């Protein structure tokens, strides 16, 4: 008797109708949007503040290199000593005072620059000042050594190495960034999905135990069926929630950006500014075009298919583990000791993905971890955009499915015994015994 559709339907409906689930679904995007708005607002506040930095330049070399920007204004103080300048800066409520001391050797002032301020300056302010001075100094030194600065400027070249693999597919740096984004997003999505909805499954198993309905249910259906129904039903609820988040999120973002339209456009981080500058550069515009091209050059079909398979496979594997933890314990506080071995490989997978795959997608570490079943879904998803041979994908998937079958078998065993055990917190040794029953 196949009751799976019935169980899936019930699990889905109870999850979706649950009040906290509904609230989560509709409030989360609002909170998220509010956060973005707040961040946008705050960064704009920050921006409106114009800093004035006074420069006491005893060498008189730097007047033309400190140019005012939107955030910082430089004023030069002349003909007074350090103490008077300090007073002056304080009285004018300037941000700080940059003191460049003259030494015997006019060029060697490296150790003779000081910055005085009330608040300690941010890293970016300091490095901005440092690089300005460094640049000027090295120019001066070059000149002294008889180097023509114009020639140096002339000899600057940009190079963009064209990449091509042996089968003739062309790639580029932008390609790689795109691939990273793809793989990273897929892996991270899977990670989040497992954590959120794995917990949901675990809780619903515990709920059946605490409400004591479990024995009634499994006198009607096989535990494996109940387990699968739970996993599938909860996943569908999860997908529904994700879809709603996606739609709501984009609507809200659209609304926000049309209300604060102009201010959003003005809200730019330094990186964005840099991006914009580079985009105005004709060469880079070309690159942008190749980026679009390379998007279509990605093994899209393979990506989508692999995403589906590994996402589902990985999710099923982990959720069967979550379910057996739920079956083994009586209440949520007891789950901690069993959660660690589940979370660890997951986190390991993300770390391997972030640190190793980016570095060398086809290196030994990445390859090995993309076969180990508990890490393979995340790591493989991150590797695939870089082109993984089909046989590797298939093999890894087969291993994954094999492991899944095994864990479901184990989980069903633990489940069958555990759901009828009340009152005591089992040890690992006991879990092992249950598997043998």
């Amino acid at each position: 008797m196949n009751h799976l559709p019935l169980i899936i339907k019930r699990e889905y409906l109870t999850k979706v109708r649950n009040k906290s689930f509904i609230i989560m679904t509709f409030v989360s995007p609002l909170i998220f949007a509010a956060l973005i708005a707040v961040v946008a607002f705050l960064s704009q506040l920050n921006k409106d503040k114009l800093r004035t930095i006074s420069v006491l330049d005893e060498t008189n070399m730097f007047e033309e290199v400190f140019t005012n920007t939107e955030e910082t204004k430089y004023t030069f103080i002349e003909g007074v000593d350090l103490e008077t300048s300090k007073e002056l800066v304080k009285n004018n409520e300037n941000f700080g005072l940059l003191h460049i001391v003259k030494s015997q050797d006019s060029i060697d002032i490296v150790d003779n620059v000081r910055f005085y301020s009330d608040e300690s300056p941010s890293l970016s302010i300091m490095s901005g000042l440092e690089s300005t001075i460094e640049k000027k100094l090295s120019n001066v030194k070059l000149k002294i050594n008889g180097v023509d600065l114009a020639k140096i400027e002339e000899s600057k070249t940009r190079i963009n190495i064209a990449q091509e693999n042996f089968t003739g597919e062309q790639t580029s740096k932008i390609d790689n960034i795109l691939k990273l984004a793809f793989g990273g997003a897929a892996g991270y999505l899977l990670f989040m999905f497992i954590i959120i909805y794995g917990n949901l499954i675990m809780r619903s198993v515990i709920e059946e135990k605490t409400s004591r309905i479990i024995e009634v249910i499994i006198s009607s259906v096989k535990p494996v069926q109940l387990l699968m129904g739970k996993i599938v039903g909860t996943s569908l609820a999860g997908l529904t929630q994700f879809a709603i988040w996606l739609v709501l999120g984009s609507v809200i973002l659209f609304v926000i950006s049309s209300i604060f339209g102009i201010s959003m456009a003005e809200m730019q981080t330094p990186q964005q500014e840099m991006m914009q500058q580079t985009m105005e550069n004709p060469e880079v515009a070309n690159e942008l075009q190749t980026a679009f091209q390379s998007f279509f050059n990605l093994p899209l079909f393979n990506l989508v298919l692999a995403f589906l398979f590994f996402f589902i496979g990985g999710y099923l594997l982990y959720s069967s583990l979550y379910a057996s933890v739920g079956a083994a314990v009586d209440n949520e506080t007891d789950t901690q000791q069993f959660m660690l071995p589940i979370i660890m490989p997951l986190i390991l997978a993300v770390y391997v993905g972030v640190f190793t795959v980016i570095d060398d997608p086809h290196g030994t570490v990445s390859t090995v971890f993309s076969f180990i079943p508990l890490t393979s879904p995340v790591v493989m998803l991150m590797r695939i955009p870089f082109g993984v041979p089909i046989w590797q994908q298939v093999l890894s998937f087969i291993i994954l499915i094999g492991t899944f079958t095994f864990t479901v078998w184990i989980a069903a065993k633990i489940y069958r015994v555990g759901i009828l055990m009340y009152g005591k917190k089992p040890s690992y040794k006991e879990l092992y015994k249950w598997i043998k029953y």
Partner: protein
Amino acid sequence: MNNNLLVAENVSKNFGDFKALNDVSISVPKSSIFGLLGPNGAGKTTLIRIINQITMPDSGQIILDGEPLRPIDVQNIGYLPEERGLYKTMKVGEQALYLAQLKGLSKQEAKSRLKHWFDKLDIGDWWNKKIQELSKGQAQKIQFVVTVLHRPKLLIFDEPFSGFDPINANLIKDEILQLRDEGATVIFSTHRMESVEELCDHIALIHKSNKILDGKLTDVKRQYKTNTFEVGLRTENIDGLTKIIEEKYSILPATFKNLNEDLKLNIKLNDNDSSNDLLGFLTNKAEVNHFVEVIPSANDIFIQSVKSN
């Protein structure tokens, strides 16, 4: 054999080193109420779970209606476990429909039967309530309805009356008897011996994983009778009379309600004596105004057989 709906043949089950059931065989006749008795932890629940295919036996088999138990047979069994409950946040009607469908009923069929039962038990207005809004006794009623709704051949009740007030307990008892009369076979597990006396036709007693006793309740009682008679004698000389009887029979003092302040004794028959011999002996000595054979109660049998094992 054909008169038995359910037969357990040499069922054994171990949990690790712990022997939960040791070679237990029982036969449950059709349309009877079968009392499955035993002290706590004896193995009753394990046997019940094996019958429900929740756990598998290590050896032995279960025969239902002449055939070895199949997975589909869950539809022929209705089980009310001792550890029972319902989804707290689900509505009564929805939940009952779900559980009925799991037992193989179609949605329409389940709905019409539920309506019938809800009307019968006068609980129709609970349909849209959540379980957590009901009292424990009310939830138990729902649970009972759900157990019997699919009209199974075999009903298994584990402590069905716990949580019910006397009125509702009576109501449920009558329902159980009616189900039996309509042809259902009932396995009934309880520690309340007075309901065993009231309901059971057959009993089996499990103690420390072994079956130590089974059979028709009247047969078991016959087997456990001690040929003892409760006797009330009217006499002026109580001590003298006691002495005379004591010389011939082994006696114990007895207590029972009687209109007169008499000599009250439990007298055990001598071997090869009949009750008439005793009665004859007594009528010669005094006026007999009370003479009843002592029938062991289920409670006595339970305690006696568990202690002697």
